[in-house]
């Protein structure tokens, strides 16, 4: 292993060591030593990751390539060797750094937070368990980040799920907590069901579960015109490749709480607040986005559209619900879902870099806000209802200020055209820009599809260039970009020349007619109707106004105005151990933004350049980094957005302050005025109820049916045999008076017994009948001999 890999692997293993140590000795270490052990472990990891990051940025392309060793054989499935290794690229490095850094902050915070929390139930301390789980989580999450194969990804994927389960259920003496934990795990498993099936499809079609290998084989299959891409070969008119991508994405739907599996995340707030910050805001839930990013190369245009649509629905629903939440953590939870939706949308529309960039910035500011809320909750003696807070800025100035930083960041505050702004300003806006581009920009970008012959040409070209070579230069990529967005056959000759062909927006009429060539190639053309693409831009933009509104609402209700509950207010306080991490994260929110992270993410995009369906777009103007690999969108895009969303945060903030500036009175009136809408939102669109009835009830019914079946029918030869017996006894004139029996054995037994009764019928006890029977039998033989014998 190269040094960098060693740093990373060691960084993964240190939390594991911490976990083992705490699992066996945690109880003896007690409070707070157990917590500090965990902090030490993750801090060491963080240090290593910083070192790795430093070294990485000082390596040239060849050095980076050389730094990657492995993969190593893990096991054999049939004749296929399954490998594991470190997926060493810029994205891994930066994700790793982000996770460890945020973890460190949150661990430190937790030491403070848990100090004040009652950790004893029935005189049994669970303090050390908390940090034990946290260590296990960090191990799993870091493993997920460095995983270079879908299998390892899946394994760590489940492990983080387990940690999430354990930590949500940390207060398991509360029924609600254990139920929430269970809900989280099972909902995730539903997603994982898709993931597993997706893995199966990957294995079947690509015979490789490593990310690089699968990507290469996927590309080769495309180049070879494999039936994998034939819509006729799959179900519902979607090609197997599309299904594969969509099913893999199902895992992300579960983990990132996307519609329709988003229901678990709000409930997950039952866990301690640091857990919400770490797992359910910054890292684990973002793993879905990370997965999508990693499998991006396996997504067909149709699958990408699916991702985008799911993201769009999610962000909309969650943002709307967030408006009416009164629990400070629930607001943040829905906000998280909404932001994850943005990321997914970004992935779907091809804003690969922007989505991951948003992931990183979001991790900082959302962790910041969650910790802030934790500080508030802790300070207010476990009061989570914002309606009872207010005016806390006096008691918690640091928290208040840092929280505001978070609010500004999520709202996308920044000064347009000046490159000054907080996380969301860059990342979210870039996503929207790309969405705009897909909807209104150049047609050829929107139609990420190829004509067969072009695809062949591309494939050849890529093979010639060495498809797996990550060192493909920007110039190279620029060369092939135009060809990779295929033109309709007729236009191909004239348009495949060189630079991208610009076409007026108005001209970009959806080409619904089927071209013979396209049909022959068996590939979908630009998937989805045009209005869908427009919706994928317009709806998120609208929601970009909602986001600042509900965030400002939360901040204002909590910190500003007058105290609404003096009991809460009087006890409020903050402690350094807890606000210091807040400060660190706030700083991180500032610096994480544009210049540090985005270039690295963009570097990570190298691998994307080998995808057959290259729809990765990025903000050309904003992207000063020359490492970006993809298609720069029209510079006009982002500029055009300025009037649209550039001031959205201002409008949102103003609205929020206008409504909540003087307390809850106005809001209550509004709620009353919009009763049906308010009720709908309050009940979160009734998803829980729906699932309760349909799924849980359905399973309950099924299990009742199955067990009933088991009890009464399998047996069931029982009923059958019972019937047969009755029929038989009707013939023989025997009346059986057996009651119901259970069990197959009893069924057989009953028949047997019945037969037993039958054969004992002659045994009536009277010798005359015996003689009659015997003589009769002889007579039968005699008759047979006389008449029936075959001569």
């Amino acid at each position, binding site marked *: 292993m190269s040094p960098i890999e060693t740093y990373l692997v060691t960084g993964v293993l240190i939390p594991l060591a911490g976990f083992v140590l705490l699992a066996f000795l945690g109880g003896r270490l007690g409070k707070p030593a157990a917590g500090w052990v965990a902090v030490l472990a993750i801090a060491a990891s963080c240090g290593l990751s910083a070192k790795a990051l430093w070294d990485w940025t000082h390596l040239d392309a060849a050095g980076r390539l050389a730094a990657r060793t492995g993969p190593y054989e893990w096991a054999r499935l049939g004749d296929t060797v399954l490998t594991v290794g470190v997926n060493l690229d810029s994205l891994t490095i930066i994700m790793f750094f982000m996770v460890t850094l945020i973890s460190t902050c949150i661990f430190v915070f937790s030491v403070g937070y848990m100090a004040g929390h009652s950790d004893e139930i029935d005189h049994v301390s669970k303090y050390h368990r908390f940090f034990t789980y946290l260590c296990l989580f960090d191990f799993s999450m870091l493993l997920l980040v460095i995983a270079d194969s879908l299998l390892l990804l899946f394994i760590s994927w489940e492990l983080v799920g387990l940690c999430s389960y354990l930590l949500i259920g940390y207060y398991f003496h509360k029924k609600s907590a254990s139920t929430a934990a269970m809900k989280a795990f099972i909902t995730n498993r539903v997603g994982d069901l898709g993931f597993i099936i997706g893995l199966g499809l990957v294995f079947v079609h690509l015979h490789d579960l490593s990310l690089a290998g699968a990507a290469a084989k996927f590309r080769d299959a495309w180049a070879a015109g494999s039936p994998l891409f034939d819509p006729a070969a799959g179900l519902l008119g979607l090609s197997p490749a599309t299904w594969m991508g969509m099913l893999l994405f199902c895992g992300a739907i579960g983990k990132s709480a996307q519609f329709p599996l988003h229901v678990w995340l709000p409930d997950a707030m039952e866990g301690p607040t640091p857990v919400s910050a770490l797992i359910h805001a910054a890292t684990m839930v973002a793993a879905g986005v990370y997965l999508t990013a990693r499998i991006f190369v396996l997504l067909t245009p149709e699958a990408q559209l699916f991702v985008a649509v799911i993201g769009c629905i999610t962000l909309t629903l969650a943002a709307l619900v967030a408006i009416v939440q009164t629990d400070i953590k629930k607001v943040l939870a829905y906000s998280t879902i909404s932001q994850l939706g943005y990321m997914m949308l970004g992935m779907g529309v091809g804003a690969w870099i922007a989505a991951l960039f948003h992931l990183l910035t979001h991790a900082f500011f959302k962790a910041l806000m969650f910790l802030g809320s934790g500080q508030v909750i802790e300070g207010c003696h476990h009061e989570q209802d914002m309606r009872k807070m207010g005016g806390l800025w006096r008691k918690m100035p640091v928290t208040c200020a840092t929280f505001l930083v978070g609010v500004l960041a999520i709202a996308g505050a920044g000064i347009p055209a000046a490159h000054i702004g907080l996380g969301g300003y860059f990342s979210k806006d870039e996503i929207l820009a790309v969405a705009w581009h897909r909807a209104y920009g150049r047609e050829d970008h929107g139609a990420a599809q190829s004509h067969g012959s072009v695809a062949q040409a591309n494939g050849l070209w890529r093979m010639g260039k060495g498809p797996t070579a990550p060192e493909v230069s920007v110039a190279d990529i620029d060369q092939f970009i135009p060809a990779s967005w295929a033109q309709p056959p007729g236009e191909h000759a004239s348009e495949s020349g060189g630079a991208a062909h610009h076409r007026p927006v108005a001209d970009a009429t959806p080409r619904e007619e089927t071209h013979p060539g396209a049909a022959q190639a068996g590939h979908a053309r630009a998937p989805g109707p045009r209005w869908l693409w427009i919706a994928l831009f317009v709806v998120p933009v609208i929601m970009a106004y909602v986001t600042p509104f509900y965030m400002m609402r939360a901040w204002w209700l909590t910190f500003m105005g007058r105290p609404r509950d003096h009991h809460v207010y009087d006890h409020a306080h903050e402690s350094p151990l807890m606000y210091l991490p807040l400060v660190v994260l706030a700083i991180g929110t500032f610096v994480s933004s544009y210049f540090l992270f985005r270039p690295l993410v963009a570097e990570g995009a190298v691998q994307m350049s080998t995808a057959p369906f290259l729809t990765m777009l990025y903000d050309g103007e904003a992207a000063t980094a020359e490492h970006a690999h993809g298609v720069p969108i029209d510079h006009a895009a982002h500029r055009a957005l300025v009037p649209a969303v550039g001031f959205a945060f201002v409008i949102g903030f103003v609205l929020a302050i206008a409504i909540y500036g003087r307390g809850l009175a106005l809001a209550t009136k509004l709620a009353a005025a919009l009763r049906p809408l308010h009720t709908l939102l309050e009940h979160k669109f009734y998803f829980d109820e729906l699932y309760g009835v349909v799924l849980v009830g359905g399973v309950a019914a099924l299990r009742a049916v199955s067990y009933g079946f088991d009890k009464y029918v399998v047996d069931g030869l029982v009923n059958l045999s019972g019937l047969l017996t009755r029929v038989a006894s009707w013939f023989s004139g025997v009346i059986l008076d057996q009651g119901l029996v259970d069990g197959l054995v009893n069924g057989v037994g009953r028949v047997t017994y019945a037969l037993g009764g039958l054969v*004992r019928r002659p*045994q*009536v*006890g*009277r*010798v*005359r009948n015996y*003689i*009659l029977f015997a*003589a009769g039998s002889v007579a039968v033989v005699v008759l047979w001999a006389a008449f029936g014998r075959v001569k």
Partner: protein
Amino acid sequence: MLTIGLTHYLVLAAALLCCGLYVMTTKRNAVGILIGAELVLNAAALNLVAFARYGAGGLDGQVATLFVIVLAAAEAAIAIAIFVNYYRVLATIDADRGDTLKG
């Protein structure tokens, strides 16, 4: 002019057999059943003698008949002894009353 031949004996024996079977299966009195059995035995004896006379078996049949007669006597002796015992215990000679053993 009726010539008595083998067939007549055989028919007679068959008739005896049927009578015996009928008696055996209808009589409730144990002695009756025994008598039925004796009728069948006699049918067989008649057969044997007839075959001995008309067939190729020669004296064998008649010897066998003697055996049958002796056996019938022995059987009757034992049977009667058992009937007496039965009567002593159950105070009846009705075979149908002895139906405790069954099933």
